[in-house]
């Protein structure tokens, strides 16, 4: 008679096993659920931020097909009227945009022409007749969406102040509009173009002109445009804007996948222990005629049930955590990339499906090996524990060989030149797995060393505790490997953040060599800045004043940051990564430009290559004479000699002045002298010291890594839960053995000490082994993941606090994991244990 795929009683037995080992089952469940939580939360936070960004773009782009973008000073507004007049392009609108702050909240000011907007038919300034006249007539009129006004607690006709680059201006809310999609306009504030130009101090200039063009008009406009202006497809431009923050999203995803990898290893560990614990029972099944395939299916089905339930729970907690993470993600994007407001938390079904599937697939994958082990279980009559351990011990050299192979393969991927993040993850996985395979042999070696070290003072209990680890290496090796991986995540991520922080501090020290920096409120006010510069040079205590111009320009790869500097008489102190011979001379004489490391890395550019930039006279190739370290922009920066810039862009504007004081002069004295010179022009200039810039930069850095730290804590929590489960399972499995020791005269106290010593020792080994693995992991994170995501190189350092944290985590986890089994074993009835044996 053919049997069913799985006898229902086998199922019932498994469920009762899980119920009986509820600690273990709950911890496994929580491990999977937390892994899924992290993946889902990060994915939802990322997709909400991306969606908010594209909605915000959409609301100001609408069905616009093209944009005219301009040079350093933007576009002369007469171009717009000429475009309408000479080419009769009616579907067009002028735009001026800028970042403002209202009541400490970031908003994007959009200045446009309400009449032109009506022809483009998009969200911007969709007003009723009465409101329209107010917007046009009131020189301080602004418009907000219903949600924006309510968030700022503003009512109609209320006057309030906005902050624009250190200045303050009064505006009046003349209209509040409703929209079908509130999230799209939530972070935007609208004004008539003239009002926006005045607020942003860009009178007579436009940032861009939005157009709806067919192919014929596109050709006409292209031919008509002056050289310094460029016609771009709005979709392409929006895409390149979106790409700017993509590396940040990718890095977050990497962190969440790392947590899932840890969770997977721990699930593997727990499932393996669960199989080992049931070896006897599985042996009885085999004797009764349960086939190997049925045992395999049984273990996989158990894991499937657990995976489905835990992944479903992970989805719910992922939704909750995602809502918190989206705030952190938004803050970082605001700090680093662009003004973004995310109020609508997007529940993307694809993210949920992805998280759920990953949870189930990873759990099943991690169960395959234990299920295969279970499938190889011999019938009970031929089982011998000592034989099993002997088989394991014989397998150790093979595991070491395979482990070293995987490690070498992983490291070769790390050193490969491919620009693939996937390869980075694969390298990370191989290194972690490879190291795990070596751990049991390393543990055996460490035990030998420990026995030698403590041999003069060891008591019998301690000796038994130490030998117990070696005797049950099939189980202890797994538990130590799991704890090692968990702790190494702390080391790896800690070293990565510490190294980047250190690198940025060093870089700031090298790059910020001035004492005081002065930023004019309006870069176009050239005469005012020049006159201040000349006045400052005369001041006692000031050695030198230099000026610079920083702006976005169009390159062959989309927008890049351009920094025009005057190295005259000043040694070029930019931290250089690589350069042509005589690069300083070439740069200073305007014969080439320097590009930032991320630009060089992502676009595969190097010294000797050329970079095409869109100048006032159209696209021009600039030779690259060097690559400099830069951590301000992940999409790229170009440094150019000031005269060269002036020649090609015809722009004399100044973005900032750098003041160098005489040696020994106090910053505060210098600042006071500068303030005295500025006198009544305080509102026109922002004065900031070197240390304040550093402080601000590090503040932003630390805020950026708050989210990484949150992820690290969650990853450690996943690991901690998994390890707790593994160690508890391990010690509970030996309950009978402890009962027999009690029966043979060991006191409850001695049993407790033995178990605690054993788990603490395992914790110590895991802590020690986690350091090399953590350093390898840091290497991958720094050299592959971060480099491929951001293009940054870092100086790797090992912060001592990371080592202390790692060792504490390992020992505390082990200690906590030992408490419950120690208590249980100490109180076991020796009679019961003897009877069962």
């Amino acid at each position, binding site marked *: *008679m*053919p*049997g*069913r795929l799985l*006898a*229902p*009683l*086998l199922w*019932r*037995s*498994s469920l*009762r*096993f899980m119920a*009986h080992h509820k600690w273990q089952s709950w911890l496994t469940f929580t491990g999977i659920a937390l892994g899924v939580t992290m993946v889902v939360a990060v994915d939802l936070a990322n997709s909400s931020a991306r969606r908010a960004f594209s909605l915000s773009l959409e609301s100001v782009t609408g069905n616009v097909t093209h944009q005219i973008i301009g040079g350093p000073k933007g576009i002369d507004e007469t171009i717009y009227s000429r475009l309408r007049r000479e080419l009769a392009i009616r579907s067009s609108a002028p735009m001026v945009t800028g970042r403002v702050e209202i009541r400490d909240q970031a908003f994007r000011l959009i200045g446009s022409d309400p009449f032109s907007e009506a022809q483009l038919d998009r969200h911007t300034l969709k007003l009723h007749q009465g409101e329209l006249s107010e917007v046009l007539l009131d020189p301080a009129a602004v418009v907000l969406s219903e949600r924006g006004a309510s968030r700022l607690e503003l009512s109609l006709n209320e006057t309030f102040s906005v902050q624009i680059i250190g200045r303050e201006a009064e505006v009046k809310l003349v209209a509040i509009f409703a929209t079908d999609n509130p999230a799209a306009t939530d972070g935007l504030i609208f004004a008539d173009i003239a009002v926006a130009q005045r607020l942003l101090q860009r009178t007579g200039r436009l940032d861009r002109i939005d157009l709806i063009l067919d192919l014929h008009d596109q050709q006409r406009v292209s031919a008509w445009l002056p050289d310094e202006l460029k016609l771009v497809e709005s979709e392409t431009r929006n895409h390149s804007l979106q790409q700017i923050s993509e590396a940040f999203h990718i890095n977050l995803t990497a962190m969440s996948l790392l947590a899932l990898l840890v969770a997977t290893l721990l699930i593997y560990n727990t499932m393996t222990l669960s199989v080992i614990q049931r070896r*006897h*029972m599985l042996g*009885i*099944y*085999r*004797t*009764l*005629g*349960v*086939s*190997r*395939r049925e045992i395999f299916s049984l273990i996989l089905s158990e894991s499937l049930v657990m995976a489905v339930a835990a992944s479903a729970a992970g989805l719910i907690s992922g939704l909750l955590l995602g809502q918190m993470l989206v705030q952190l993600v938004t803050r970082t994007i605001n700090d680093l990339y662009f003004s973004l407001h995310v109020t609508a938390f997007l529940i993307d079904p694809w993210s949920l499906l992805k998280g759920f599937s990953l949870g189930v697939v990873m759990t099943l994958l991690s169960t395959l090996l234990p299920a295969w082990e279970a499938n190889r279980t*011999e*019938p*009970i*009559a*031929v089982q011998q524990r000592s034989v099993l351990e002997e088989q394991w011990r014989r397998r150790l050299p093979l595991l070491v060989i395979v482990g070293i192979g995987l490690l070498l393969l992983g490291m070769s991927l790390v050193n490969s030149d491919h620009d693939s993040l996937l390869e980075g993850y694969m390298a990370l996985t191989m290194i972690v797995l490879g190291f795990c395979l070596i751990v049991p042999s390393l543990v055996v070696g460490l035990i030998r060393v420990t026995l030698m070290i403590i041999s003069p003072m060891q008591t019998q209990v301690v000796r038994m505790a130490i030998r117990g680890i070696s005797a049950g290496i099939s189980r202890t090796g797994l538990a130590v490997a799991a704890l090692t991986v968990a702790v190494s995540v702390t080391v790896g991520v800690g070293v990565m953040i510490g190294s980047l922080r250190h690198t940025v501090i060093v870089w700031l020290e090298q790059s910020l060599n001035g004492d005081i920096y002065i930023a004019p409120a309006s870069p176009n006010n050239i005469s005012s800045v020049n006159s201040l510069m000349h006045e400052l040079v005369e001041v006692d205590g000031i050695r030198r004043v230099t000026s610079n111009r920083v702006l976005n320009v169009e390159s062959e790869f989309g927008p890049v940051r351009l920094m025009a500097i005057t190295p005259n008489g000043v040694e070029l102190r930019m931290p250089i990564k690589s350069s042509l011979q005589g690069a300083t001379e070439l740069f200073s004489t305007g014969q080439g430009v320097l590009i930032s490391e991320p630009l060089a890395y992502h676009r595969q550019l190097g010294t000797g290559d050329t970079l095409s930039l869109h100048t006032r006279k159209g696209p021009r190739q600039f030779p690259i004479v060097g690559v400099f370290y830069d951590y301000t922009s992940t999409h790229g920066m170009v440094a150019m000699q000031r005269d060269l810039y002036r020649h090609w862009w015809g722009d004399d504007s100044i973005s900032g002045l750098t003041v160098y004081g005489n040696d020994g002069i106090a910053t505060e004295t210098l600042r006071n002298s500068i303030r005295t010179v500025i006198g009544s022009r305080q509102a026109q200039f922002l004065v900031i010291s070197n240390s304040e810039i550093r402080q601000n930069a590090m503040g932003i850095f630390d805020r950026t890594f708050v989210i990484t730290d949150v992820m690290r804590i969650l990853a450690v929590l996943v690991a901690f839960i998994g390890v707790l489960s593994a160690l508890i399972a391990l010690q509970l499995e030996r309950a009978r053995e402890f009962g027999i020791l009690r029966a043979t005269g060991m006191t409850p106290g001695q049993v407790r000490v033995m178990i605690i010593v054993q788990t603490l020792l395992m914790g110590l080994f895991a802590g020690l082994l986690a350091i090399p693995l953590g350093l390898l992991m840091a290497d991958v994170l720094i050299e592959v993941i971060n480099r491929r995501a951001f293009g940054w190189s870092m100086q790797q350092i090992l912060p001592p606090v990371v080592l202390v944290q790692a060792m504490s985590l390992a020992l505390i986890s082990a200690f906590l994991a030992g408490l419950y089994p120690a208590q249980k074993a100490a109180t076991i009835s020796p009679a019961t244990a003897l*009877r069962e044996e």
Partner: protein
Amino acid sequence: MVNDEFILLKNLHRTYQEAGLEHAVLKGITLTIGRGETIALLGRSGSGKSTLLNVISGIDKLDQGRVIVNGVDLTVLPERESTLFRRKNIGFVYQFFNLIPTLTAVENIALVLELNGYSPSVVREKSRAMLTAVGLGQEADRFPDRMSGGEQQRVAIARALVHSPGLVLADELTGTLDAETGELILSLLQQLVSDQGGTLLLVTHSLAVAKTADRILTLEDGLLSEQEGSFAW
């Protein structure tokens, strides 16, 4: 009594590796057992009695020789076929009972029927009846760890016989029980096997137990002899 060649063992050889040394446990065992026979297998500890049971049931492999049970050569069967043969034709009773701790008494018995593909109603009916036959009809829903050694062994016997296997293998089934309980258990097993017309192969240390069998075999130095004499163990 004996009416055909139900079990045929031909020149069985089995050697184990222990600490790098070869240890020959079976050195050419040849034996015929008839259907319905009760055989007692005596021998010192480590003489290979359990190994002989394991190779007869197909759960241990031979180095050489053939095991034919009811006309089926187990030594040539693939793993899966061997498992299915065992599931259907063989029942085991062990010294340490080996009940599934997560199943109740009646579920332990029912599991074998389920594995053999019986319908749920037949499984329910047969397992209850078998439990009643071993005198534990009222204890159906108790878990093994709540039962005495004698009760657990009766459940184990019920589990071994519920699917009416042609061959029942019992390894030291009275070893952990007191003399009185042991005797009761033994006679219960023999009675039930005899009622089903099955063949019983008993591994034991006890001459008293052995004497209840149709034939007594002794395993010494890897060789089998059929004799009755004084036993020192």
